[in-house]
């Protein structure tokens, strides 16, 4: 186990963590504003990833551009999903919400399987194999750009939430929906737009991922679990916590697979997750909701 290998893993893990952060932020925002933990979050991301594949195959554009192009389509999907499925269960028991979104995840996953088959899809671009060397560390160019784009999008989101009137309304709704309603915030509209917007932001994440990653129908579940772990690790409802947790998880994931070179490696990640919660039960920054 050389030092360079560990450093290499840490750097790649950090870059991956940046993309996780954008995915998890969307999930954390949805949870904060409507109290629904969406188990189909990764499947919506997967829809975006297939969308990017289709656009790239048809037009030969860069996946980043393709991701931007499908934002409106994803917003529309989020809008429809919210109206049909999410709105009826806002305020229901957590079991009911988890169940419904798991059912949704099943449907999306099976539909993807029927449509695209179980084969692996990726996007070919000239950027795909290029890399930057920093001493002994090799940084994959698409990963670096993906991380930067994701961080930029996260920064924009943070600015939107803290500096605009709609950002205030969203944060007010997250703080206390009843109070927000009494103060004249159109809570239902906020919830609808947050869900649609969060789904739209997944298109950006999908573009970043498709620059170097692949998509199959089971990728959705993988990202759902990952982003759920991040949101819990960051402290439920805590956006900054989710951001930190995403970077931590990205690094931890790459490090464990570098250190334990076996099929068991990912187990270490989940054990770390449990240990972290034991020490920081209310999230890494200790500001998560208790109930």
């Amino acid at each position, binding site marked *: 186990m050389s030092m360079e290998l560990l450093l290499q893993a840490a750097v790649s893990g950090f870059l991956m963590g940046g993309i996780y952060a954008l995915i998890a932020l969307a999930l954390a925002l949805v949870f904060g504003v409507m109290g629904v*933990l969406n188990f189909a979050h990764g499947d919506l991301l997967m829809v975006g990833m297939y969308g990017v594949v289709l656009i790239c195959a048809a037009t030969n554009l860069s996946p980043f551009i393709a991701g931007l192009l499908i934002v409106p389509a994803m917003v529309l999907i989020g809008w429809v999903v919210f109206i049909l*499925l999410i709105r*009826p*269960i806002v305020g229901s028991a*957590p*079991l*009911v919400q*988890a*169940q*419904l979104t*798991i*059912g*949704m*995840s*099943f*449907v999306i*996953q*099976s*539909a993807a*399987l*029927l449509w695209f*088959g*179980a084969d692996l899809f990726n996007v070919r671009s000239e950027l795909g194999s290029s890399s930057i060397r920093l001493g002994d560390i090799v940084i994959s160019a698409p990963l670096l750009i993906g991380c930067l784009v994701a961080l930029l999008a996260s920064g924009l989101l943070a600015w939107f939430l803290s500096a605009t009137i709609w950002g205030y309304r969203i944060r007010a709704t997250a703080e206390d929906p009843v109070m927000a309603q009494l103060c004249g915030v159109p809570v239902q509209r906020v919830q609808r737009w947050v869900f649609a917007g969060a789904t739209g932001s997944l298109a950006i994440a999908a573009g970043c991922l498709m620059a170097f990653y692949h998509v199959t*129908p089971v990728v959705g*579940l993988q990202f759902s*679990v990952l982003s*759920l*772990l991040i949101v*819990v690790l960051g402290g*439920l409802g805590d956006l900054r916590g989710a951001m930190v947790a995403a970077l931590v998880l990205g690094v931890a994931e790459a490090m464990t697979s570098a250190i*334990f070179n*076996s*099929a*068991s*490696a*990912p*187990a270490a990640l*989940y*054990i770390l*997750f*449990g240990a972290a*919660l*034991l020490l920081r*039960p*209310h999230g890494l920054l200790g500001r998560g*909701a*208790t*109930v």
Partner: protein
Amino acid sequence: MSGSSKTVARPGRNRWAPFIGLLRSEGAVAALLVWVVVAITLAFLNAYWVSVVVMMLVWCYLCTAWNLIGGYVGQVSFGHGAFFGVGAYGTAYLSTTHGISPWLSMLVGMALSAVLAVIAGYIPFRRNLSHLVFALLTLALAYAVFYGVSGVRALGGTNGMFMPLDTTGLAAMRFQDLWPYLIVVAVFNTVLLLVLQVLLNSRYGFIWRATRDNEAAAAASGINLLKSKQLAFAISAAATAAVGGFYAQFVGFIDPHSALGVHVIIQILLFSVVGGTGTLLGPVVGTFALFPLGEIMRVELMSLEAGSHQLVYGAALVVVILLLPGGLIGLLRRAMGRRWFSSFKLFVPEGAAAEPLPRRRGSVAENHEKVLVAEGVGRDFGGVVALRSVDLEVRRGEILGLIGPNGAGKTTFFNLLGGTFPPSRGRMELFGQGIGGLAPHECTHRGIARTFQITQTFGTFTVAEAVFTAALPERTFDEAREIAAQVLARVGLDVRRDVSCAELTLSEQRRLEIARALATGPSLLLLDEVMAGLTPTEVTSVIALIRGLRADGITVVIIEHVMHAVMELCDRIVVLDAGEVIAEGLPAEVSRDHRVIEAYLGKRAQQVAAAAASDNADRQGGRADDDV
């Protein structure tokens, strides 16, 4: 409904009655359903369908086992795939490589699963974290075991383990034919259903349902939430591991994906929710309805990609949640009337004598003149000082009024006494023993009982059941029954005993709060605004009730804004403002204290009041009614 129900379990009258009750219970009906399916399968179906039904009964068993923690205790576990896999791998590994009987190895797997469950449950249950944290932690457990097993060569790694069919017979749990498997798995189901039915009819059933319905009220009833949840989770995990062992023997080959994959828990959730959680029949019915449907779809869609039949499952789940709350069982119940089969009914004797209410056994140290002493007690929430520093004492047999404007810290003080959270500073002693930092159920066991300002009810309980459950911790079933009867008679809820707690009026809810507190057998009773929102007649009867309790030797502290009641009832009054005691004394003294008037009405009002008082010297100044 009370007397007419068919199976009133009355121990003492007929000692077979509980068993007859059990035979007519939901668990027995579910077990019967299992055997009907087995009989139909053996009589009419071919070998392919027999193996499908064996798997269906495996899923049925899994859902039933999961339902204990997920449905009855209300903690959604995503970790049951791990327990299933631990059972399967435990049996496969020990029996193939060490030649240990699969029945014995099954026990090892069950023990291991129970230990895993207790470890995984400890963090969220101990700290009372969100249900979602528990769900995600158990999901992490499932993934940790999945990947952990994938890398162990002795367990076959990602390739899995093959179990050669050397010996057959019941001892080896391997058979040449399919039908014995069907019988064995049906027996598994029957045993589990009946064991669960017995547990649910016992004290644990009440404790678990109380924990699910309302944690605050359950803890105030003296229930140890951590123990209650851990016990259910461990039993559920061990039961799940048992059928994992059977599955390994039946299939003869296991790999991480089939035994530990995430599909295990997803299908468990799916079948249970579609059937209806929190009932013994629901998961059985859900599995029987969905599993064959999925199997048919799988065969029909064989030409398409593997796994696409799950589209049906997902769609069924979404439709049931949106359109059929309560699942198929809820639908059946609505269609066929609520009691189409008899469920267990708690017997609480009627017309109890008006004896003094029972006390907790431990509280014999009552010759102490001072029941409660608080010295410099305070509590901060982050930077907010909710309670600065409170010194007060409560004397034996008195009724002490705790008043003050909203936000003065009265309820915070009760929360400290009740163990909701520990004090940030100061000392609290009950009969000379420190009680700072005790958990709510420990405070209850020491003899402090409380009501909640916002009434906390057990939504699925009847009034009698709720009071009975509060009497249950640390007592026997029969003792709790007697106490419940006495308390119901005392607070005047006897006629409403079989009504669901959710259907009570506000005044009845407040009485139920008092009843729940009394049933724990308190020496010190904390009443938090039990008169708020009541009509004058109702207030009068509550005053009479509280006086009666004092006559029984119970010391009472009340927080109240109904001032004339406070003045009439209390021996002494302590006034809190901004987290500190500002006045203390007899009702008449306190109501004239200028600092009290200032705290309630502000400085100007105090001057006006002083002017008015000089105008009319006879007038008593204590009519500052209700909220200020």
